[in-house]
């Protein structure tokens, strides 16, 4: 009798294992086919030269990587990427934080302003870029019209190499602020009212309260937004594809856009894969660094 019970328990256990694997199988198959295998394939492709149809023509070892690090082009792209991150990420966070600080109170009408400042969250990169393409138009665009009202000479937003990155960043900040604002606002609203009141009783001014008390309490949220924003900024593609195509004279040619050009315009899949892997490693290191350095300064309750 005990033997039979044991074996039926074994069968139940065995059945549970089987069921678990069946439940995991669909997701696992998709990951294996479209994430794990392609990732390894990328490593292999980065060591080869391919024909335009993507078939490996020659195994060249680390030559693609050597070309990459020895040619000036990669550093131009990397510099453009870093400039883009620098122009978009801090601006977007500070601007959204400013708007959040103004609107997180329970004053009359705040719901309306909260709705308006969240609105850019619905904008996708395709629609957003098209709107700004028209706003940036050098002769008929509204931005230059507003400048002319202020007697400022017209700017060639997307055509002037000095302005192109700024213009793309401006559009990007607008497009991303909805998400960043919503996240920071919910962080601000989670700070209990008593904290503001006790600061008021202590006679601390509004700005002092914000810098000394609110900001430290908000630091986990800001940290989260920072990490996500930097990863996203590294991968920004659509707005550059629609607005500037990497030009003028490489001014907005970020690494991701260069990968697109190498792989899908010039069909050089080997060098494209090599760049993708280098970018992946850079993002990984930067993310780990942020966790190692910044997270210690984050104030978790």
């Amino acid at each position: 009798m005990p033997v039979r019970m044991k074996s039926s328990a074994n069968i139940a256990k065995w059945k549970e294992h089987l069921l678990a694997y069946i439940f995991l199988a669909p997701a696992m198959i998709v990951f294996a086919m479209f994430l794990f295998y392609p990732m390894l394939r990328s490593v292999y492709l980065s060591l080869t030269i391919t024909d335009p149809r993507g078939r490996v023509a020659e195994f060249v070892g680390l030559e693609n990587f050597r070309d990459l690090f020895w040619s000036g082009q990669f550093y131009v792209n990397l510099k453009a990427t870093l400039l883009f991150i620098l122009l978009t990420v801090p601006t977007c966070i500070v601007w959204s934080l400013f708007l959040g600080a103004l609107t997180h109170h329970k004053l009359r009408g705040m719901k309306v302003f909260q709705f308006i400042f969240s609105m850019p969250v619905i904008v996708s990169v395709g629609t957003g870029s098209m709107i700004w393409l028209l706003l940036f138009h050098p002769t008929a665009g509204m931005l230059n019209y507003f400048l002319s009202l202020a007697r400022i000479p017209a700017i060639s937003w997307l055509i002037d190499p000095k302005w192109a990155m700024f213009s793309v960043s401006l559009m990007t900040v607008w497009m991303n602020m909805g998400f960043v604002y919503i996240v920071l606002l919910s962080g601000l609203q989670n700070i209990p009212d008593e904290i503001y009141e006790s600061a008021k009783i202590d006679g601390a001014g509004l700005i002092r309260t914000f810098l000394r008390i609110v900001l430290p309490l908000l630091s986990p949220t800001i940290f989260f937004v920072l990490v996500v924003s930097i990863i996203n900024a590294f991968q920004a593609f659509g707005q550059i594809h629609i607005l500037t195509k990497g030009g003028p004279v490489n001014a907005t040619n970020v690494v991701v856009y260069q990968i697109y050009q190498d792989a899908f315009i010039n069909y050089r899949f080997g060098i494209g894969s090599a760049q993708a892997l280098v970018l992946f490693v850079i993002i990984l290191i930067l993310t780990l660094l942020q966790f190692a350095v910044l997270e210690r300064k984050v104030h978790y309750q």
Partner: protein
Amino acid sequence: MMVRTLKMGLFYLVLIALALIVLYPFLFTIFSSFMTENEVSVYPPPLFPSSLYLENFSKAVETVPVLRFILNSFIVSGAIMLCQVMTSSLAAYAFAFLKFTGKNALFMLFLSTMMIPWEVTIIPNYLAIKNWGWMDSYQGLIVPFMAGAFGVFLLRQFFLQLPHELFDAAKMDGCGHFRQFVQIVLPLARPGLATLAVYVFLNHWNSYLWPLLITNRPEMRTVQIGVAMLQHEEVMAWNLILAGVTLALLPSFLLLAFGIKQLVQGITAGAIKG
């Protein structure tokens, strides 16, 4: 008292000015899409349309297959959404309720997929789709995204928070895991499933690069690519382009009105507290 009222007045004035700055691109888009060709060709164009001129929408729909683009996006995003909800809830159930060998290792493996950015997988995936003859097809747009690790984690958290007593009672009644999954867990987890569904739908509604690579024929384009292609249609006037943009924005705008904010908050709350 006077000073206080004055201060409040100033505060609201600043807020209104900031709101106008943020809103302006939307206002420009919506107003222009109601303007006649004559109105937009004046410089500077008027701020408001003189009347609700609806021709642009019908003309935009006639000259470019905007409705077809929107339909394609609905089919693709909808199919991805359904598949991801299914694959994620199955995997999440296994991680939340079943005991099996290699659970931790597999969980780590799932977690690691979130660290793989699209640029490392896109070239081999593109070549694979091309080899299989899946260019310009729905399966090429849908199949690579049928599962996502993010959904697995979101739902696993959700399942773990469900009251345990229910499952103990079900077990007493001799309810097997499959029945427990379909009849107890899924109905109880509806808010979590809905959150995931909206998130996935919106993500793929907005996706740009993959459909750009996979589609060439106009009738297979998704709405994001279709709208961006409007810039190359030389005949297109601004009011027509912006009418197309307005149509493309409409579904996401409806989502915003119905509580996308709760969605973003719900998703990030887990990430910050976790």
